[in-house]
């Protein structure tokens, strides 16, 4: 079973990044859960969600020990980097988290300048999709095609199919960025 | 002919009928009803069947019937 923690400022789209991950897993017939921090945390401060997926029963949908942390801002990195599983992965938004970082030796750190990339491909709101794709690539459980199909299926069911081309472009960009 | 009928057992002797009767037809019995009140009585000769007692009674004591047979039976 995989556990991923998506964290950032409210409004950065981390909850959607996590939802894309969970929906891709479900699309491929796996079990998945998505659990957010909620309430006052949704309006301003930090937002985070834990996604778990796999073929076995998910007993606890809550956070335990993430295999991967996506940190979209500095406070999220500071708060959660220590919780990542031994030998785990951390992906940071290097547009916001810059300079020297205190990184655990067992961790593989990936820097993705998601906002810069989003602007380069003319998808200014696509940073979170770029990150969702980067996470899917790094965990190596689903192919690029599975990821795109799962994501597009999700947005279509929400009635947001008009963004499909843009989302696909962002996803491909993120998948190739790591 | 109209008749005036009373359910005396319901009377609580509040005297609102008595106070508003235009023809002084109402008096109170010396006997007590089951609830312990000196219940209202109507002098049928004086009564003009105007229905004001019915209007002012909070306890449903009075009824005016347009029923000659019933009158005959009384």
């Amino acid at each position, binding site marked *: 079973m995989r556990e991923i923690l998506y964290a950032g400022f409210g409004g950065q789209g981390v909850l959607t990044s996590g939802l894309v991950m969970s*929906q891709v897993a*479900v699309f491929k017939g796996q079990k998945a859960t*998505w659990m957010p921090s*909620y309430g006052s945390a949704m309006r301003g401060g930090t937002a985070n969600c834990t996604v778990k997926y796999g073929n076995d*029963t998910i*007993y*606890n*949908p809550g956070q335990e020990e993430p295999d991967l942390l996506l940190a979209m801002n500095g406070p999220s990195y500071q708060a959660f980097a220590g919780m990542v599983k031994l030998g785990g992965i951390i992906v940071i938004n290097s547009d916001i988290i810059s300079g020297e970082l205190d990184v655990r030796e067992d961790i593989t750190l990936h820097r993705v300048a998601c906002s810069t990339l989003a602007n380069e491909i003319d998808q200014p709101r696509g940073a979170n999709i770029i990150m969702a794709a980067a996470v899917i690539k790094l965990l190596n459980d689903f192919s690029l095609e599975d990821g795109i199909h799962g994501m597009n299926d999700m947005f279509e069911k929400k009635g947001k199919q008009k963004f499909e081309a843009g989302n696909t472009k962002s996803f491909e960009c993120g998948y190739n960025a790591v | 002919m109209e008749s005036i009928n009373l359910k005396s057992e319901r009377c609580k002797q509040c005297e609102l009928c008595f106070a508003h009767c235009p023809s002084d037809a109402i008096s109170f019995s010396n006997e007590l009803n089951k609830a312990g009140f000196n219940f209202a009585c109507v002098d049928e000769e004086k009564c003009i069947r105007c229905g004001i007692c019915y209007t002012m009674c909070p306890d449903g004591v009075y009824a005016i019937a347009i029923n000659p047979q019933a009158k005959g039976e009384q």
Partner: protein
Amino acid sequence: MADMIKGNVAIAEAAVRAGVQFYAGYPITPSTEIMEYLSGRLPELGRSFVQAESEVSGINMVMGAAACGFRALTASSGPGISLKQEGISCISDEELACVVINVVRYGNGLGTLYSSQCDYFRETRGGGNGDYRCIVLTPESIQEAVDLMAPAFELAEKYRIVTVFMTEGALGQMMEPCVLPDFIEPERHSWALNGKYTYKKIGIFDRNSMTEAVALNEKHALIKENEQRWESGHVEDADYVFVAYGLPGRSVKGAVKELRKEGHKVGFIRPITTWPFPENGFKEVNQNVKGFITVEASATGQLVDDVALTAKRVFRERNVPAWSLCCVYGVPSLKFTKDGFARIMNNELKEAY
């Protein structure tokens, strides 16, 4: 293939499919999405939704709709349910049927927004003034929650009682796939107020409380006998049996699986009804069991009281100790349960009873 769906939204849609004709309530985190969803969905189906001016008013509107024989629902959280107790007590007294959802949040008074199980005592004891109980259903997953919605109403109507659908903030806010139940079209209750004076019960005067108390006790006894629901595993040979409901109950099943692999003879009982408490589940437990351990999201330990009382009834000849692992709020991790178990084995944690 089912898609990811939010707990509160799935619960609300399940209520629609169970035939809910009327909803009234007041928004409060973390239950609000139920109300938001129904505000659009019910009118779309020609049913009624009222945003009430208060929690108090909301439950009384539910009382009115329930009295007229329709499936009526309200939802709230911690302090909101406190305000509804007057109405819940009156609905119970009038023997009307309705469902009240409590998406439990942590804390006393206004509390906080964290997920919790701290309302256990209130919900399982009736909650308001008087001598009544509510049937309390406690799902462990979104799937179980949607599957329990129609039974929640069926139980309420079968016994003319309030069913409290007690879930947790985390379950309301999380997402996972579920298969939604089919639509049902319930009939208006035969005992409903219909304007034609077919319902003869009257108010507090001219009533015989003695007779009614006897009838109420008989009803409660019948519910206890017939309606206990639980899930259990590995209890026949267990030295220690974990007891937990809701999301902690689900998490504990994972911890039991791992502890078993590590050679510990542990089992679990997961109450699905916390009232009536699943005493029958305890009768299946190994006669030589060494203890019960609750895992619960409250600071003080509440479920442990029912576990200890039930152990006393089932194991009459000896005192089986009961421990409580309290995680205050949230969902206890598998590690939390396993660490707690280790502390109990090392005599580092005193039993509650």
